[in-house]
């Protein structure tokens, strides 16, 4: 099975709901509609031809300039038998970051989703235990979002224009 065949099968199955196919560094990458993530995951996991039984990674990214699509949830799956990896993303608005949980398909997703919630505030709908995992419970913000600068804000001696980010 090649990337091209997987892409074709996904398009056959989901039509317009899967788009933006790319292949950065050889890994098939695509996007899907926000409420379609669980269907895509289930299809990739359960379909006999696909056989993506292994969730490599699940994480989130914050793009503050992406209006109404500020947060991305990235899934990375692998077909272990064929050594094939694919990645797909869903985008959610920051005011309503609701995504269906993947815990029903992959047990791996449990803590990874808690991590994504902890750092980005993504609300995984249906997660059995969506609480912070690394940070303290009392924390009231999501530290990996881009508005929280790493260094103290009162410092003026470091000029980002001159020295890059």
């Amino acid at each position, binding site marked *: 099975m090649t990337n091209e065949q997987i892409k074709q099968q996904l398009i056959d199955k989901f039509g317009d709901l899967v788009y933006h196919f790319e292949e*950065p*560094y050889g*890994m098939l*990458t695509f996007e899907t509609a926000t409420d379609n993530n669980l269907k895509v995951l289930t299809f990739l996991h359960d379909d006999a031809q696909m056989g993506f*039984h*292994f*969730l*490599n*990674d699940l*994480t989130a*990214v*914050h793009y503050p300039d992406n209006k109404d699509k500020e947060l991305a949830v*990235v899934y*990375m799956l692998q077909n*272990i038998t064929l*050594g094939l*990896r694919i*990645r797909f993303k869903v985008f959610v608005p920051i005011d309503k970051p609701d995504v269906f949980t993947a815990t029903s398909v*992959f*047990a*791996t997703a*449990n*803590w*990874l989703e808690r*991590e994504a919630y902890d*750092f980005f505030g993504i609300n995984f709908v249906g997660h059995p235990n969506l609480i*912070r*995992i*690394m*940070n303290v419970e009392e924390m009231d913000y999501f*530290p*990996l979002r881009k508005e*929280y600068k*790493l*260094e103290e804000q009162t410092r003026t001696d470091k000029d980002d224009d001159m*020295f*890059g*980010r």
Partner: protein
Amino acid sequence: MSQKQNIQLPEGGLGKQTTTLNLGPTHPATHGVFQNILEMDGERIVDAVPTIGFIHRAFEKIAERRPYYQITPLTDRLNYCSSPINNMGWHMTVEKLIGAKLPKRVEYLRIIIMELARIADHLVCNSVIGVDTGAFTGFIYVFEFREKIYEIFEEVCGSRLTTNIGRIGGFERNFSDLSFQRINQFLKDFPKAMKEFETLFNRNRIFMERTMGVGGIEASRALNYGFTGPNLRATGIDYDIRTAHPYSSYEDFDFSIPVGTTGDVYDRFLVRNEEIWQSVRLIQQAMDKIKGLDPSIFHADLPDFYLPEKEDVYTKMEALIYHFKIVMGETDLPVGEVYNSIEGGNGELGFYLISDGGRTPYRLHFRRPCFIYYQAYPEIVKGSMLSDAVVTMSSLNLIAGEIDA
């Protein structure tokens, strides 16, 4: 005397049949800072709730403000039992992003260092399984050789535990004659000690009774939980990044991937032991392979990323320019996202890197194998004895630094 009770029992407390027990955060058996709240019925575990995050250091956030070459020391502190593997993984991720091609000698030298680190990692894990089952002797036998491995690292890069070894594009300096001597000496002496260690444990009746059938997990469950590394292979799935997605010229080598059947503590122990032998084989082959190669090559020709010799910086204009550009972050980096994974001591250590062309990553996510498979711990230990939970924990090789990042 007042009749008021001074002991406040919780609602329905007297009816509660189980005991809550805190295993950790600081407990000799956890070998790291993480907590398990166990619900015990006598000596059997009914439920376990792991709590982590005690040494969370926000590496992913810190990495967003550091130039690429300054992220290597962060990776040291993930799995600190095998820092060199993490370092190499990070270098390879950046090299994949910039599309660098490395000379064979560099890749073979990397394999030597990575496999030494793997041996050190597995030695810690396996000898500590021995300690947790009450056999201290094996630990003493093999820890001498962990020290020898650290001496090799010290000779190559100057530090022992948090190594920061290598640079993007190669090594910071060439291997000295002494480091090759030490590697050869290690290859000569270590197999004897390893044999002794195996003789002590592998067919030891007490050890077998203590570990067989303990902490087992089925292959399909392990895969669903995202197990990787020796813990997955102990269940019978031969998934190893070194063969599934070869990197650093592992495809040039002849080695095998040991697998277990039941995925219990004993199988994990045997798989790790066999992997140590395979690592010895790999180092021997790599030592033979580098003999025929130009001994002066220790880095790729990547002037945009690899710092020039300090002497050249003072005497040559071009070297000065490159030095300045690298340090000040003026080098253009490709925009893109890349996922690179390597076979770490505990399994698939992945780096998911998004670059927007700036001098620092836009986003960097570490796929830490420990973090991912530790969530299976409650399922594994449910119904077992407390002492089995302890030995299960050490056989999973949980490293707090890798869990928390």
